[in-house]
């Protein structure tokens, strides 16, 4: 692949636990090409959201980024001065959050918030910003946009709020959208509409999306490539069809087998034994070794390396040793 839009290499983000600094994001490599949708999948607490926050350098204290390079269109983001970072945030990388209900300021009209986002990154007058906001509301499919601009968040439904959030995120025409569980707080029918909207964005505006989710159904709908995270590491990465159709890592395999839609009626769902360990309490060697059905001696001794599997796919697993 030629120079991706976003290239993350060896990202390590740590939090202090007791006296030690524990990496909650550990040596993550990730690339998102222009106009590509990459899904970052994993259970709660595996470090997905922290990876997204690291990219925008918004890791909450006392966490910090300890190592790694993050390049956006060739420009290193780490170590940029605050002013330049603020221009990147929202301007080139925008985020949408899980809970549309709480992601909008309750005491301002949504129109004022969209206009604020526009004027943050562009020198335009108030009336021009309003006109742009109207266009944005139309483009994200909000019916009666002029009236909706004057509405306060509590006057909008969950789906409309998420559309307004997306409009705010798109205000400065970002190249990359970090969507952190964009459909989790919504009804299934609204979820489908929002996914449709995101898909059309990719097609029309060429916006790349890093989609953070634990919902494999959403991944299947939208993603071009999939990266599976476990305990702060990306354990498997590859094209959607390959990862979801023929998973190589036992963790991915376990996740897929636990999906209700794949089970036969009356049959007990397959589960991955145990629970995600808290950061710092990971098994020695491979972090999945205490829950893995294929575990053998090497797994408990050495952390598996990131292994290229061909076709742009990677995995971290000793069981793939010597595999093509």
């Amino acid at each position, binding site marked *: 692949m030629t120079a991706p839009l976003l290239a993350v290499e060896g990202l390590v983000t740590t939090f202090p636990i007791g006296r030690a600094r524990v990496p909650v994001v550990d040596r993550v490599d990730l690339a998102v090409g222009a106009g590509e949708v990459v899904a970052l999948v994993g259970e709660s607490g595996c470090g997905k959201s922290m990876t997204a926050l690291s990219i925008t350098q918004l890791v909450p204290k006392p966490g910090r980024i300890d190592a790694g390079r993050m390049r956006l269109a060739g420009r290193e983001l780490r170590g940029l001065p605050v002013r330049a970072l603020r221009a990147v945030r929202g301007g080139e990388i925008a985020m949408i959050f899980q809970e549309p209900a*709480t*992601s909008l300021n309750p005491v301002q009209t949504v129109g004022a918030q969209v206009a604020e986002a526009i004027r943050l990154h562009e020198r335009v007058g108030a009336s021009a910003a309003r006109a742009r906001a109207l266009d944005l509301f139309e483009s994200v499919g909000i019916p009666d946009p002029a009236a909706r601009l004057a509405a306060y968040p509590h006057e909008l439904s969950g789906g409309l709020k998420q559309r307004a959030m997306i409009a705010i995120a798109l205000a400065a025409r970002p190249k990359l959208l970090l969507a952190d569980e964009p459909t989790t707080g919504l009804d299934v029918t609204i979820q489908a509409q929002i996914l449709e909207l995101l898909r059309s964005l990719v097609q029309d505006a060429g916006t790349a999306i890093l989609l953070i989710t634990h919902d494999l159904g959403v991944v299947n709908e939208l993603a071009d490539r999939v990266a599976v995270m476990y305990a702060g590491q990306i354990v498997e990465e590859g094209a959607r069809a390959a990862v979801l159709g023929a998973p190589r890592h036992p963790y991915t395999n376990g996740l897929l087998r636990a999906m209700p839609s794949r089970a036969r009626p009356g049959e007990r769902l397959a589960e991955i034994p145990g629970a995600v360990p808290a950061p710092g309490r990971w098994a020695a060697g491979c972090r999945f070794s205490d829950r893995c059905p294929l575990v053998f001696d090497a797994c408990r001794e050495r952390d598996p390396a990131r292994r290229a599997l061909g076709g742009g796919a990677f995995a971290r697993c000793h069981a793939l040793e010597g595999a093509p």
Partner: protein
Amino acid sequence: MAPAVAGNAIAAAVAAAGAVVAWRVRRSAYRRERAAAIVRRAPLATAVVALYAAVALLGSIAWTDPVAPGTVARPRSLIDRCFPADFGERSYSAPLAAAEFYGGAPLAHPGSHLLGTDILGRDVLQLALGGARVALLIGGVTSALAIPLALLFGVTAGYYGRRVDDLVFFVLSTLASMPSLLLLVALVMVLGRGTFQVCIALAVTSWVDFCRLARGETLKLRELDYVQAARALGVSDFRILWRHVLPNLSHLVVITLVLTFSRLVLSEAILSWLGVGIDGSWGQMIDQARDELARDPIIGWNLGAASVALFGLILAVNRVGDAVRDVLDPRTAREHA
């Protein structure tokens, strides 16, 4: 002349502020509905507060009439002008009495002092009405000093945390660890007596509680999604504070304003009782009258007038304060809706 000019300026400023607030309330359907809800909840108290405010406003507008050479010219307010210019007696007289209380000499204005006169022969009703201006001035000016101060420190401490928080909390703890009355008296002694000096002293001792509240609320708001979202959009810290944190604290500001107001007026009464109050306040009237209670027969009318005036204002403001909290606090608004 100077105090009259200051009084007129304050009266004009207050009237202008009131007009702006009324205009803003009228313009927004939401605010109009909220204001109506407050009045509906405490109609009598709102009317009483409005009456006090009107009396205070009239008491603030004053000018000096040209006088005959040799006499001292004193500015007289609109309230004073409701009474005859020489409406004094030589000493105490009972309400509507025709003769002096001690000695029984005939009064200059027999039967016309509705609430009697005080030891210097001043009309008690006139004094009590004039006290409204002082009371509202203390409550208003002190709140105008204390609340922005508390917001500034509370919000920055809550938002930035760490060193700033430590520093602000050190100041708060230091102030809270001193007996507030002692600190108040000491401050008045240092700053000197006078309306604004007393207001400053009261502000220094009364911003602590709201600062704590504002800090706690900001700590909560800081972690909310829309503040995080604003940060992810590249909004600067100052703008986040100004557009996303402060507006979401405004209901607390309104509630605190009304509730501290009455406490401040009472504090001034205590200061007057300690001899460091403001001239013309109800507290001072009570202070001057307290020796009379030991006499026989008791002279109670000037004490009574000041106490009733003070009590009426505090009660009405507290009732309005409760109504404001009920209407603006989202947790109670739903129960009453």
